[in-house]
């Protein structure tokens, strides 16, 4: 196991921990705004996982997924914010 494999494995473990915390907030919520924030954070963590896996596997195709998820996350956040304000 070389340095790159080891380091990206640590990074993926850290992202899994962040994912668990965020899903806890998404499930517990308390308000709709908290849940929307948790969804936004989930999208950011998905972008980070794409980047880390692209470095680990040297596969440049994964970067396109990162760009698309970054765009879709903004769309969903704005749609939820508009919905909350009109309700």
């Amino acid at each position, binding site marked *: 196991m070389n340095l790159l494999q080891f380091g990206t494995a*640590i990074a993926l473990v*850290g*992202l899994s921990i962040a994912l668990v915390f965020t899903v806890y907030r998404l499930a517990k919520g308390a308000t709709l*705004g908290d849940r929307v*924030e948790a969804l936004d954070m989930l999208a950011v963590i998905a*972008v980070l996982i794409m980047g880390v896996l692209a*470095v680990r596997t040297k596969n440049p195709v994964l970067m396109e997924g990162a760009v698309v998820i970054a765009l879709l996350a903004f769309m969903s956040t*704005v749609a939820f914010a508009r919905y*909350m304000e009109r309700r």
Partner: protein
Amino acid sequence: MMVRDLITVVLVVLGVGFAVAGSIGIVRFRDTLARAHALSVTSTIAVVFVMAGVVVGMPDLGSVTKAILTVVFIFLTSPVGAHMLGRSVYMKRASRLELQKDELAAHRREVEE
């Protein structure tokens, strides 16, 4: 090759550390606006560091372009999304807010009437 791998790993792990700190903030902070603060600040920095790691680790044209594109998108959209969400939470009183000072209270009352 060893030095490039080392720089890549340091950048990626630093970015992931910011993401973990942000998610801890999302769990631990008390009201929705404080959580929005933890989310938008740390997630922007985390994406910047991880994409810098991608640029160092995979220096071909396509990957570098997409990494820069992702960083630009996050920089443009993360503050706008956090602001819209915070405004809707504040104006609709959708959360218990622990504000030291509420300078927009008069405006909010005006809108609500």
